[in-house]
């Protein structure tokens, strides 16, 4: 196993975080991050779809002709989204009432189609599953953090954070913080590499 690739894929959810770095899937991010429960529910639903659609697409990557790859991906993604919807209706009806309207939108979530096109269609099943899991958990964590912060602010009496405008303000601030911390991490990595290079020299 290529350890470097494994590490890169596993850390993809952080280093290429879909919400804070790639800025993908903004509609459900803003719509469903008013509280932690909804954020967690939608995040996990998206992660499930991401993992299984990545696995399926990777399995079929040599079979699917280039011309029909997008319709094929959409069919596969829509199947797993329907499964999630059926599961929520059966076992979590109250959560379904809360986040139900955003579940069908997962089909057109840029993160899922993006990962299918950019990663799953070019990599083996194992890596595709790992990428789906990493990206899915990255998305879930971002949503939960955003939902938690907004919930606290709403509880503190700042009603504006209930609205989309409040959501964007929170997202912007968290995005700045995340990228600042990511910058520090990357710089430390660079410094380490340079240091190792120096040693080698």
């Amino acid at each position, binding site marked *: 196993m290529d350890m470097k690739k494994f590490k890169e894929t596993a850390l993809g959810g952080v280093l290429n975080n879909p919400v804070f770095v790639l800025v993908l899937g903004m509609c459900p991010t803003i719509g469903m991050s008013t509280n932690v429960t909804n954020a967690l529910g939608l995040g996990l639903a998206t992660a499930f779809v991401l993992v299984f659609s990545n696995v399926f697409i990777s399995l079929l990557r040599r079979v699917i002709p280039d011309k029909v790859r997008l319709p094929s991906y959409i069919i*596969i993604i829509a199947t797993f989204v329907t499964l999630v919807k059926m599961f929520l209706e059966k076992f979590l009806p109250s959560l379904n009432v809360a986040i139900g309207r955003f579940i069908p939108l997962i089909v057109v979530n840029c993160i899922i189609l993006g990962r299918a096109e950019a990663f799953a269609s070019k990599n083996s099943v194992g890596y595709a599953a790992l990428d789906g899991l990493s990206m899915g958990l990255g998305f879930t964590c971002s949503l939960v953090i955003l939902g938690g912060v907004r919930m606290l602010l709403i509880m503190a009496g700042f009603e504006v954070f209930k609205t989309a405008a409040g959501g964007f303000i929170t997202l912007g601030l968290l995005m700045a913080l995340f990228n600042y911390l990511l910058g520090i991490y990357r710089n430390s990595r660079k410094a380490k590499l340079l240091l190792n290079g120096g040693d080698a020299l």
Partner: protein
Amino acid sequence: MTDSVSHKSTESELEARKIMRDTVKELRNSEKPLSGKKSTMNNTLKCVLVLALIAIVCVSLLAVANKFLKVEITLDKATSALINKIAPTGADDDTAFNNKYIEIVDLSKGGYAVTDLDAYNKTYGTSTQKVRALYTSKNANTGKVTLVVEAEGKGHVDAIVLLIAYDEENKISGVAVKSQSESYWDKLEGRQDVFDAFIGMSGNVTHLQIATSTGATNSLRGMADAASIANGFIARARGEAANKPVEETDEAKLSQLRKVSDANKFTRYTVGAAAVANAFVGDNGDVIVEARGDGGSYGKVTLMVRTESGKVVKVARVPGTDSFEPIGSHDSSVFRNDDTLNEIFAGKTLQELAGLPANGLAGTTGVTESGSGLIAAVKNALEYAASFEAETKGE
């Protein structure tokens, strides 16, 4: 001579070779696009096959999942508590649930005229209107059993599920909302008048009968649709639909009926189908069908249609349906005028209806959806009236 002949033959040979070469070249050239076409065809076929295969696999997966994940409606505590509010058992919510004063009805076990809910919804429901369950609520003190229907109608966002309690005359005695995910629901919160408006209603319900200017019209439509199908269901479940005539007492309905008939009293035969809500017979023998037609821009078009011997005699609009809404640029005011409607439809037979242009009724254009809805409603009325009149005469 021989030389010249041999020379000539060589020339012709050369010419023949040249022709052969050209032909071969041509054939080779023509082979190229031929193989190209072949490969394009193969690629297209491959695309179609792969897509079809993926679709089949996905559909199979969903079909298997549906067996395990299909939602079966059961009576839970929350639903029981809601039913206890609209059809009181005389006990507290926990006792009512634990002592089974409130129960879900298994229609397949008999006792009601409807035995299969799926089949009922296929016949009388639509993709946006269906009956989900029937419950009984027994009063612990009096022993009186109230029937409660769980029905859904499509609102602005998704289905609105209502619990509707009925009295012995199949009139609504209480309404509670089981679930909804409407974005404008806050406009209806605290509006008890909206829910009170349902009380005493039967037959087809339009949203304008419930409330006006709420800011949540589509949610009201969903609720009205749920109530309409539940009203039809309760009458049929009790075996009274179409067969047991009841005198119409609803003033709103009577005023609509009087637009098409001079009769003083009307007897209602509840039909409760998606195409026909009710049939009425006036005390002077007039037959009026309350019919609906799909195709309206803002929902179903509903008309009161008086018929006689397979022909339309008079038509009147039922307010609050489709193009009768005065909405901005979609205002097809010509259809909000009963006189115009009568000019179009009076005297028409089923065959003559088929020739009417949906996008040119009364010279209007750009109202195709409403036109289709109107034609469909009159067609449904004539079709039902034919069988209804035959049945009535037979009796």
